[in-house]
């Protein structure tokens, strides 16, 4: 996978570059999803960062994961206690008080594991092929570019990236 990208010193010029590439996508006939943005820290308050989008999926999945974990805990305790009864000295065979502890812990474990899985899927991790990164982003710069630019479009893309205020233009 090859890429053409520019490194930007501030989020404003990165936003300009993203806007320029979006405009170029229809003119140069490439999919907008090929536009790549990467930074060494999250930038909030800019359109290109997606921070304005409301995402509720992970919260819902965490709740669902918690419910699934709690149900599993309930089944684990009650089914085993009833399948393999032991002498309890007159106490209930399947006591809600003590089983509640297992159900609680399993609920939280379910929510935690679901959150982890949701993050990995949502963020597209793990992804060991085609990682486009530049040491510059760890120095505070923002990478904006196009993955697999269409043939013959590179000079125009380079011009637009430069025009948006790129400190450096690179190819990978």
């Amino acid at each position, binding site marked *: 996978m090859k890429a053409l990208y520019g490194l930007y*010193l501030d989020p404003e010029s990165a936003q300009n570059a993203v806007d320029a590439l979006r405009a170029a996508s229809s003119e140069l006939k490439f999919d907008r999803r090929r536009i790549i*943005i*990467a*930074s*060494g*820290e*999250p*930038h*909030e*308050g800019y359109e*290109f*960062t*997606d*921070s*304005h*989008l409301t*995402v509720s999926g*992970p*919260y819902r999945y*965490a709740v669902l994961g918690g419910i699934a974990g709690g149900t599993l805990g309930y089944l*684990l*305790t009650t089914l*085993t*206690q009833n399948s*393999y009864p*032991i002498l309890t000295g007159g*106490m209930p065979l399947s*006591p809600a008080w*003590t*089983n509640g*502890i*297992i159900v*609680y*812990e*399993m609920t*939280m*474990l379910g*929510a*935690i*594991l679901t*959150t*982890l899985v949701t*993050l990995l899927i*949502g*963020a*597209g*991790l*793990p*992804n*060991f*092929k085609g*990682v*486009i*990164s530049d*040491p510059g*982003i*760890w*120095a*505070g710069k923002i*990478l904006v570019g196009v993955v697999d630019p269409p043939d013959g479009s590179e000079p125009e893309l380079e011009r637009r990236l430069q025009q948006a205020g790129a400190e450096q233009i690179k190819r990978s």
Partner: protein
Amino acid sequence: MQPAAERIEKDLLWPIFHTSVKYWIAVGVAGCLVLAGVAAFGYQLYAGIGVWGINEPVLWGFDITNFVFWIGISHAGTLISAILRLCNATWRRPVTRCAEAITVFAILIGGIIPLCHIGRPWLAFWMIPYPNQRFIWPNFRSPLAWDFFAITTYLTGSAVFLYLPTIPDFASVRDAATGIRKRIYRVLALGWQGTPRQWQRLEIAMHIMAIAIVPVAVSVHTIVSWDFSMTLVPMWHSSIFGPYFVVGAIFSGIAALMLAMALLRKFLHLEEYLKPVHFDNLGKLLLTMSLLWFYFTFAERLTTWYGNTPSEMNVFWSSIRQQFAPLFWIMVFCNFLIPVPILAVKRFRTITGTAIASCTIVVGMWLERFLIIVPALDHKFLPYSWGHYRPTWVEDTLMAASFGAMALLYLLFTKFVPMISIWEMKVGLQPHGGIPVSTPEGERHGLVLEGPLPLDEMR
């Protein structure tokens, strides 16, 4: 912002790429302690659990003291970090990773101790609920089974809570490293690129984790306290034990965290990141916990004294006036009388002052765990069953090894992971610590004015 970001990157990656002689000496000392513990444990496996000083009626000694102590230490990290994240306290940034690492390692060490205690660790898998032909299932009515579930959940949650915000920093090391190191960090970073979507999902995940981990942390130490309070041993069967243990755990955990921060600051040269303000803020929290601990200790003893039950009074007087009195009063000095004046007076609440207070608290809280367990078992209901406990060299060695293991794990961690979250520090460089003003989010944080905050304040 770029020069500052580069500086942060350089400073915080420095310990990963440079190793001093002092580091290897420290690793060597901690490693020797761990090896001594392994040898002692090997001897215990060969000779049997009788090589410990535990006996009838004191069947829990140093091992369970250490177990409760380390689970308590584990409380600081994740709990403090999660609360500070939820409150969006900007000064948390240099502190959180040091704290989260303590949690994971302390809970690992605490979790290993019951395996030593059961005497036949190769049968520990009986705790795992799986269908088997012997029809042996964990007894879900037993606090030991609750411990298993609670500690597993807390360890998993804490490890995830530590790992998630470390992924971007692993990517940072990946891009700075070469050779085999680059390949290792490539795997650890999971192919992180830093796209807006990845950042957004990471922050949401951290938010959910922070919400989920706080009740889990509280439940873990409450459940550990139920190991005691579910029994009818004098002075154990008490409803105050849950909150008492949680307060003690947070207290000892913060002390351990401050001690670790002071050492990291000195030896990793993090003076510009772990500033006096961090020690001052945590020092105030430690002061609050010291006062709370004293109140709970007083409340626990008051109800015993007022009830005046003979069996409980035997334990009460044995710890205050008789054989355990020296340890009891050392505990009061270490947990209250020494740290409170240091932490209450601003002039003494310096890095050195808080480190001294933290040292005494760690010692005092270990004694507190010991004094909860041993005097009560020593003096059960009928005098004919009273006994004495004296730890043997095997238990002493295992205890020293647990401290060595903590030091070793922490030292190795500093070699592989930036001890301060690099990307979070960079967020702190952004105006208003990365929180956009003039947006609903900014308004939620009370940011209505334009203009950056001073750099020091943001850190």
